[in-house]
């Protein structure tokens, strides 16, 4: 991974969303949400179901285009960019409802992630000269290495659809890492995992951060968020109602009210 932490010492945020609004017809899924992520941080995004967390991710990654507001990655505006261009700039993601390439092998899934960082075209593929062969070898080696890192080294040749749920989530992480992201956005990576798997996931995310990848994650597992995140932002009905260190957010009356409903606060 690129150790971008040193290069970007200036304090410019890696990701900066300003007043992002997203409307679907009459429904305002996001209203003027601002969020920054600094290089090297782990930022959590929480909120009740339907709060707009996934929609915000989609606005970051080019799947949706905000109705208003701007998103910058390393100071570059993402407005109008398609998802593949956003990925090329260094923002990779996983999906809440797992979206693997089901009928491809586990290894091939990760190899697809290398696409954006490699070059071979049709002619290279057919002629398979030394350069293409070297590239193909490096794709395979890096992908196997990534599988080892997420603990799927032994399953490289299985079909992705045959993996148990927790493994599928980790495969999505490996596939996203293969694109060499500066920022990795994870949409509920622990959903469907048991305690052991969640603990292992926490370790994995920490090593990913140590290797210089900044993390933004949506998660419902409060323990995991408190242990892992440097900062937590809270969405409720499409608005950001809190943003700060986990302990502070946890005590925030507005957050407690959002989660437990009025009366509990």
């Amino acid at each position: 991974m690129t150790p971008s932490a040193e290069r970007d010492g200036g304090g410019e945020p890696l990701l900066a969303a300003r007043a992002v609004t997203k409307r679907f017809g009459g429904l305002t899924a996001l209203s003027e949400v601002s969020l920054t992520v600094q290089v090297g941080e782990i930022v959590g995004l929480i909120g009740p179901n339907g709060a707009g967390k996934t929609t915000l991710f989609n606005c970051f990654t080019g799947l949706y285009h905000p109705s208003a507001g701007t998103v910058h990655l390393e100071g570059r505006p993402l407005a109008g960019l398609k998802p593949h261009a956003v990925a090329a700039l260094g923002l990779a993601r996983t999906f809440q409802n797992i979206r693997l390439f089901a009928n491809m092998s586990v290894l091939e899934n990760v190899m697809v992630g290398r696409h954006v960082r490699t070059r071979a075209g049709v002619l290279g593929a057919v002629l398979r000269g030394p350069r293409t062969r070297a590239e193909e070898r490096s794709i395979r080696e890096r992908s196997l290495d990534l599988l080892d890192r997420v603990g799927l080294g032994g399953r490289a040749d299985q079909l992705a659809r045959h993996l148990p749920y927790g493994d599928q989530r980790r495969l999505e992480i490996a596939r996203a890492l293969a694109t060499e992201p500066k920022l990795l956005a994870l949409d509920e990576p622990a959903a469907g995992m048991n305690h052991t798997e969640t603990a292992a996931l926490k370790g994995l995310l920490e090593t990913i951060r140590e290797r210089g990848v900044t993390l933004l994650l949506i998660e419902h597992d409060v323990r995991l968020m408190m242990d892992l995140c440097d900062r937590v932002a809270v969405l409720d009905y499409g608005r950001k109602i809190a943003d700060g260190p986990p302990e502070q957010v946890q005590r925030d009356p507005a957050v407690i009210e959002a989660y437990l409903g009025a009366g509990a606060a």
Partner: protein
Amino acid sequence: MIGLLPDRLYRDRRIAWAAFGVLAVLLIALPFLVEAGLGRTWVRILDFAMLYVMLALGLNIVVGFAGLLDLGYVAFYAVGAYFYAILASPQFGLHLPFWVLLPMGAGIACLFGVLLGAPTLRLRGDYLAIVTLGFGEIIRIFLNNLNAPVNVTNGPQGINMIDPVRLGGHALTRPIELFGVQISGPHAHYYLFLGLTLLVIFAAIRLQHSRIGRAWAAIREDEVAAEAMGIHTRNVKLLAFAMGATFGGLGGGLFAAFQGFVSPESFTLMESIMILCMVVLGGMGHIPGVILGAVLLTMLPEALRYVGPLQQELIGRVAVDPADLRMLLFGVALVLVMLFRPQGLWPSPVRARELHPDNPDQVRQEQESLYDAER
């Protein structure tokens, strides 16, 4: 374990070479065997089988690899055929050399692929199928009507007396004696087509197992995820279209030179559907399956021609017109295959396993992941 490995590899490799040798001899001897057993007509049919293998492998890139339903594939075949026919026939008195026109025709077909693909590939599934179907028909109607005000295609009559393939001054349609063996036109074309078919197979295999091939598969599996992983899905789909069209154009040029005559009637929707059936019936995305599908579906209708004479022999008259019977039996065969082998006659091993998970470990895993998903 490690000591055993090189030994086994060595033996496997020897077996592979032996099998390769047997296959090579068989392929070289095939037209002579076929002529001896079934007659010269069947050598011609063999030639067509090779041609269709090339076409089916081209369509397989679009449909099988990238998962885009193209019902107008025959348009590219037509472009390749007419390109050669117009520039190498008395139509304009032009007689440009085959070996120059063939790659150019493939290139022009490729261009048509891009022209069709660029505006339409944002459409998905059924919509793309309808648009490509329309495109195929438009090309055919163009060919039918492009005889006025300037007679380019000679309309419904088609273009005749197209130059044959020439190899070093020798027209391939003429018999020739080589090493004391009499090689007829169909035989010579067989070897030419076989050579080109092997090249096409080689290219298709290499493409499938490449960065581009994986991108195609990813798009077929989940276009949104592929895009999010950094694949420029529009361009990569366009590439699939262009590659398929190139193979189609190549087949078209060969067809025109082999047949010596082209007319719009050879490029109907039925032809597109036939090639699609070869891909689907054989095993979408699986190269050996597609080859099998193409060979079978070329041979089957020809074999059914014998139904007429057979009736004459058995009951003294032709009770059922073989032409009717051909379509009927063809339909029945299609339905049966789709019922009993929905993944095709020879699907890729991976997909075959999907249908018959005989590995209990896999079944358990699948149930596990289902269970997890339901939680």
